[in-house]
């Protein structure tokens, strides 16, 4: 395991940002720290980097206890949400910074910088200033800069958060492909579940300073550990007191065994899907999603009486921690 985090706790004044977190980050994979804002994921990332000190616990990176090491000595590559570009240095000088600090010979620095700029497709911008680049380009430069020092781990703090949606999607794919080439252990923080599901090999869901679940995207989506994880990773609706996915609810016009009876309150057409809101006799507002075709076949209309049941084998939150 690349990074071992044991019992890490962090307070900001009275506020407990992390509560005795235990975590193992696998080597050579992309791990996402996913969770709502203020949940502690950025704090955890910064503790791994050495930009914050934990109040308790240990951080072991590649077998070395890094808990007491200052950030300068941890050999981590850190990418900030707002790029943290060295504004007065050219792109090439930015990327070269870490190597120059390490007093590498000039030609080696030049070679490595060229290599990396090619890797991130910024070769032609080598002599521009960061202010002359777009947001996406600046972030790629920041990545090249972090990779230049051949870090043990690459840490990214909401790397695409400051970019607009289209650029975000492009860079997401690009990060995945970059990792396939470079294979450095990567940890990134995000609050966007789609991003985590798309990019990461493993996802750690963190909320209120605690790890809710660790697993692959499929595991988290199909077998969520509790209501929170289930709600966070995708749309949910409550049927019979249990959370299920709206597209896993079956609507029937005829009574169904163990089904919940209710009235159709609202029908919304959203693109190819149809969203039906049903008010059950138990007082639940259940949202059902189905394709247009299915809806047409069934003939759903407002005011109708219907019966709802969860599809067989539909994933629902395991009993246990409540929301």
């Amino acid at each position, binding site marked *: 395991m690349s990074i071992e985090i044991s019992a890490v706790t962090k307070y900001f004044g009275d506020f407990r940002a992390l509560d005795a977190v235990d975590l193992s980050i696998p080597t050579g994979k992309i791990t996402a720290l996913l969770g709502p804002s203020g949940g502690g994921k950025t704090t955890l990332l910064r503790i791994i980097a*050495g*930009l914050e000190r934990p109040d308790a616990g240990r951080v072991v990176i590649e077998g070395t206890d890094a808990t007491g090491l*200052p950030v300068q000595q941890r050999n981590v590559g850190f990418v*900030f949400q707002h790029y*943290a570009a060295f*504004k*007065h240095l050219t792109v090439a000088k930015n990327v070269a*910074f*870490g190597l120059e600090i390490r007093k590498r010979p000039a030609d080696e620095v030049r070679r490595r910088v060229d290599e990396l700029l090619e890797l991130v497709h910024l070769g032609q911008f080598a002599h521009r200033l960061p202010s002359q680049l777009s947001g996406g380009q600046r972030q790629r430069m920041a990545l090249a800069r972090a990779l230049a*020092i051949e870090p043990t781990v690459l840490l990214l703090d909401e790397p695409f958060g400051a970019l607009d949606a289209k650029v975000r999607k492009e860079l997401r794919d690009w990060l995945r492909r970059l990792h396939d080439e470079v294979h450095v252990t990567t940890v990134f923080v995000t609050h966007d579940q789609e991003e985590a599901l798309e990019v990461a090999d493993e996802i750690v869901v963190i909320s209120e300073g605690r790890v809710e679940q660790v697993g692959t995207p499929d595991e988290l989506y199909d077998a969520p550990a509790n209501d929170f994880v289930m709600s966070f990773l995708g749309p949910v609706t409550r049927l019979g007191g249990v959370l299920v996915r709206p597209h896993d609810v079956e609507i029937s016009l005829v009574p169904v065994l163990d089904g919940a009876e209710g009235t159709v309150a609202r029908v919304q057409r959203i693109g190819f899907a149809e969203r039906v809101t049903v008010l059950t006799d138990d007082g639940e507002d259940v949202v059902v999603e189905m394709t247009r075709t299915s809806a047409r076949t069934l003939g759903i209309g407002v005011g109708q009486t219907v019966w709802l049941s969860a599809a067989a084998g539909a994933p629902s939150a395991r009993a246990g921690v409540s929301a």
Partner: protein
Amino acid sequence: MGESRRRPFTYVLRCAVVGYLLLLVVWPLVLVVTHAFEGGAGTVLGLFAEPGTLAALRLTALAAVLATAINLVFGVAISLVLVRVQFPGKRILSALVDLPLAVSPVVVGLALMLVYSGRTGWFGPTLESWGLTVIFSTPGIVMATAFVSLPLVVREVVPVLHEIGTEQEQAAASLGASGTQTFWRITLPSIKWAVVYGVVLTLARSLGEFGAVKVVSGNVLGQTRTATLAVEEMYLNFDQQGAYAIAFLLASVSVLAILIVSVLRSRAERTERKATP
């Protein structure tokens, strides 16, 4: 506010403002220039050749440069401490740094005298025994000048330090840079212009200090008489030509300083606007 419709009030206000500034600043300033050159440019230049005048100018320049150098180093240091470090009493220090702007120069002179006067000061006699004369000597003038211009560098640098934030410094640290390396390679270059503005302003202010210097200098011709003191003395001794000549010189330097800062600032703004996409 539509550009097309200019209400009469706008014109009234504009005229009132321009008129006020003309009567208060522009016209008097112009008159000083004409007075200075009444005897012709040759007379003015001749006045500057006088040894007494030259000595005064030299002393002023020396004190100003020294005071500016001191305030540059400590100004940047204070700014960094105020913005990047947490410590108890920080708020008080921040407020106190502005104090020299609100204190009367005569009070400044008196304050320094009470501490460093060789006869009656708190530390003065001790310093005297070590051979260091402060009051009635150049060091005193430098200290008084440094006191009054102290906040200028800080007030320029602090907002810039706040604005650029610590991210670049954190990035540098994550790439392996030590504290000193980060300071010289990242922090200092990013506050470069603020420091420049601060230095120009400090220089201008230092060249023009009068009240505080009058108290601490003893006004000994050729030794502790600065250019500003020379203006006062010449005028009171009915050497109006001389007074106006030096006044003109000092005024020119002040206006030059304003122009330099103004030009540099607008140029910096223009490049900023062009660069950001």
